[in-house]
């Protein structure tokens, strides 16, 4: 019996594709064969974006910490503390 060859395209379509793919906005695993459209969870959306920015956040934290112990940073901290206490005093007087 002759069996017709089956092409990859017949089996998989244009190319093999994963049934699940992460949502580009929130990173959640989405079943493409599932019923109904995917709706991003707000908390997950925020977590995903923060995760993408984790290196920038870490760099900013490190730079801020280094600046705070520099002469400029210590002076700015002292000024801020003085103003805060001055503000408290002002509010108490007012």
């Amino acid at each position, binding site marked *: 019996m002759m069996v017709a*060859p089956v*092409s*990859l*395209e017949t089996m*998989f379509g*244009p*190319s*093999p*594709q*994963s*049934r*699940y*793919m*992460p949502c580009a906005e929130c*990173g*959640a*695993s989405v*079943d493409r064969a599932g019923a109904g459209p995917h709706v991003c969870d707000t908390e997950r959306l925020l*977590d*995903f974006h923060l*995760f*993408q920015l984790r290196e920038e956040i870490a760099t900013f934290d490190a730079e801020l910490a280094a600046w705070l112990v520099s002469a400029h940073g210590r002076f700015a901290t002292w000024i801020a503390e003085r103003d805060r206490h001055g503000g408290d005093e002002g509010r108490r007087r007012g």
Partner: protein
Amino acid sequence: MDIKEISRRLAEDPWQGKLEEVLELVGDDYVAHVPGSAEPFRGKEGFRAFVTTYQTGFPDGRITIDDQIAEGDVVATRWTGRGTHTGELMGLPPTGREITVAGITYSRIADGKVREAWVIWDTLAMMQQLGAVPETMPVRTT
């Protein structure tokens, strides 16, 4: 404990913080054949190394068992793995993406311990979900 239960625990328990306990179910002569690894993983340390590689990449990972069939000393377990890629996976930087993959583990179990396993899962789908290979690829057809 029957061989289905042993296979189930070997798949699920490491992802529930019970890796050390589950090593009691791994024979010293254990050999695991996995995709993408030229050399099999061997013994309890091989089991630990394999699981740890994926737990590093997917710290919140979970395996759920979909189906099992057993005959004699062999058991086939069909499973689904889910996890968020927040750690480095074999040199692949974390992406924050959540993935879902399907797989089958075919195990030979004797005297209450797994002796040999063939762990097959959809590695292409995993890599597509991680963005490590294009979602669509040119396929040469005849």
